């Protein structure tokens, strides 16, 4: 189908190009930006005047719960939610059940996405060790061939530094990105809240900063040793931002992301034992949040992910320490990204780049650039919209929202994935 997106405010995250113009799409590709190619006869015209037209968003950390936890959500439900919210590429971590440590699971996921109508591109992050056990290396070459775009041990940190070193070396030999969530299991203990006056008052088992920073320090040293291209996911501490800043100054091949909710909520928000605000890593202090905001603003942190974790109702209907961690964020991702602009943390071009071209660059995905010849993942945003976040209206199967009642100003009107109008 030939689609003409007419007279929208085009903002290309990759180049910062910002002008009111047209986009022409034919089959899967963008075939023209600005001037229409000669003889272009659109089958469908979308009037985007007064709206923002940009690349589909890229979310590099999103749990879809399939395979293994389909009572919480499915590839079908979460790709629908993603498309509904302008996210056209999803990277899913390997801690499904079964673990994504072999090509059969990768194929299973792609098959399920195809069956669900390919509403968005799914990319799998393979397990770096068999069963995420941290003992034997996974068949990374086969995983890459099957389509994995990176490898990770998810929230199962290596307990053996030698195995971790070898895994990182082997991955770099396959030219695969290593994704690490810095996590020291012993220092986490049975903790469920940032170690602070709040955890002390509420009597919640505390999680010290060192549960992240001690692991991160070791991980950075192993990057220095192996030169493996490494991405640090979902960091939460001011000290982590500073360590990454220094490692980048030292020219180590590292990048980092932060989960969108970490840029807004702090340990104060868990007052009242709201289990929807139980996360791993936990919400930390205001100073930590401000340092994360500074980090994303000055480029120390490269990009923002949703860290979407949809849950069934029962998973959260528990006293705080017994509830399952994680927030359903796909349905408020765009709203929160635009709040970063409204609150002066990022300008619009930076904000859009941090959720499209930048993560696409790190994970080498064909996304985040509006130009002729690129895959036509394009979204139309009404950025003059005003509404309140309401979990009951979420497209995601997970209604475990931490932002109910927040005011948002941006809403996706149209999502085009590979030239197909999905939403």
């Amino acid at each position, binding site marked *: 189908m030939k689609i003409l997106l007419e007279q929208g405010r085009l903002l290309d995250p990759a180049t910062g190009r910002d002008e009111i113009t047209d986009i022409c799409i034919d089959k899967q590709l963008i075939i023209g930006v600005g001037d229409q190619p000669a003889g272009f006869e659109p089958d469908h015209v979308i009037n985007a005047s007064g709206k923002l037209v940009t690349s589909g968003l890229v979310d590099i950390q999103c749990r879809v719960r399939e395979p293994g936890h389909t009572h919480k959500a499915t590839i079908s439900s979460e790709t629908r939610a993603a498309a509904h919210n302008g996210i056209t590429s999803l990277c899913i971590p390997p801690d499904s059940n079964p673990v994504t440590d072999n090509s059969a699971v990768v194929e299973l996921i792609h098959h399920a996405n195809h069956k669900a109508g390919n509403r968005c591109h799914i990319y799998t992050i393979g397990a770096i060790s068999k069963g995420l056990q941290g003992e034997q290396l996974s068949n990374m070459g086969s995983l890459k061939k099957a389509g994995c775009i990176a490898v990770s041990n998810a929230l199962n940190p290596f307990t053996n530094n030698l195995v971790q070193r070898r895994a990182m070396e082997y991955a770099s030999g396959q030219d695969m990105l290593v994704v690490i969530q810095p996590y020291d299991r012993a220092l986490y203990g049975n903790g469920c809240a940032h*170690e*602070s*006056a709040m*955890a*002390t*008052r*509420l*009597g*919640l*088992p*505390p999680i*010290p900063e060192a549960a992240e920073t001690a692991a991160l320090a070791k991980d950075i040293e192993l990057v220095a040793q192996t030169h493996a291209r490494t991405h640090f996911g979902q960091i939460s501490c001011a000290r982590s931002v500073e360590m990454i800043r220094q490692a980048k100054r030292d020219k180590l091949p590292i990048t980092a992301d932060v989960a969108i909710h970490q840029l807004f909520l702090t340990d104060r928000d868990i*007052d*009242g*034992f709201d289990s929807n605000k139980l996360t791993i890593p936990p919400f930390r202090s205001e100073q930590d949040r401000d340092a994360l905001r500074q980090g994303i603003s000055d480029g120390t942190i490269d990009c923002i992910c949703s860290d979407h974790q949809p849950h069934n109702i*029962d998973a959260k*209907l*528990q*006293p*705080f*320490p*017994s509830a399952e961690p994680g927030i359903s964020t796909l349905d408020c991702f765009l709203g929160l990204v635009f709040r970063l602009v409204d609150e002066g943390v990022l300008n619009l071009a930076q904000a859009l780049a941090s959720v499209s071209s930048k993560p696409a660059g790190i994970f080498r995905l064909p996304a985040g650039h509006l130009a002729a010849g690129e895959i036509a993942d394009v979204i139309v945003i009404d950025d003059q919209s005003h509404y309140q976040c309401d979990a009951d209206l979420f497209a995601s199967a997970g209604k475990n929202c931490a932002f109910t009642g927040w005011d948002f100003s941006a809403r996706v009107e149209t999502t085009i994935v590979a030239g197909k109008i999905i939403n």
Partner: protein
Amino acid sequence: MIHNLQLNSAGKLKHFLDIEGLNHSILTDILDTAESFISVTDRSIKKVPILRGKTVANLFFEASTRTRSTFELAAQRLSADILSLDINTSATVKGESLLDTLHNLQAMQIDMFVIRHQDSGSAHFFAQHVLPGVSVLNAGDGQHAHPTQAMLDMFTIRNYKQQFENLSVAIVGDIMHSRVARSQIHALNILNTGQVRVVGPPTLIPEQAESLGVQVYHDLNEGIRDVDVVIMLRLQKERMRGALLPSEEEYFAQYGLTAKRLQQAKPDAIVMHPGPANRGIEIESSVMDGSQSVILNQVTFGIAVRMAVMSMIAVQPVADA
């Protein structure tokens, strides 16, 4: 929201979950009401009809001897019907969810739940999910709060010292894991206690403990110097396994309350312990059984204080949602 949960629209107790968020006048009301019940517990017929026709369910997900039995006695002396559930043999072990257990009991027309559970915040969780008109009394939630214990301790202090303003109180031991200490600290501060101290090794003092309104000491002799009240906390033996302490011997040498050490406190200082005590680990037998110890009186007062809280909740309008 957390603190309003236990008060009704008139500012009276609807649930009793946490000392934090209550004011001086409610705490004083509890102490005064408990005072009036002391005479009941001294009578030959130890009953008043305040809870007649009401059903109280004791729901203990964690082991307890004195809290559970004093709650039972308190309910009986107020003429309530009482149902005590041993959770270890009940449906939750068979996989029933917490809420389903609660809802099933509610279907038996329980008016008041007395709940102890290992999760901090569990009392709030239950209070958020009971029907309007049903009350929750927190008998200990994780490491968060144990408000009736704190109130019986306040009752004990007032009984011996008459006031709080000019007192120095030291709480000694495992503050980190103690719901009793947290509730005591809040109560002492709300009652305008002159000085509240906590004493223990850094591994047993929680992060930013000062923010609770206490002075932190790591040396026992300094920590109890010239205090009017010494509250010893129970040291759980599993703390040794978690590398929080080297050994029981070392702990007793550093933090055990001996008769000699007690001389650092004022001559008329009282010694308290919420029980169960470990003789020879946190407290020497001669101190525990000595003239300054009021530990057994705490248990007696516990019944009157729990009667007070139950009766104050029971007189609130039923349907105040």
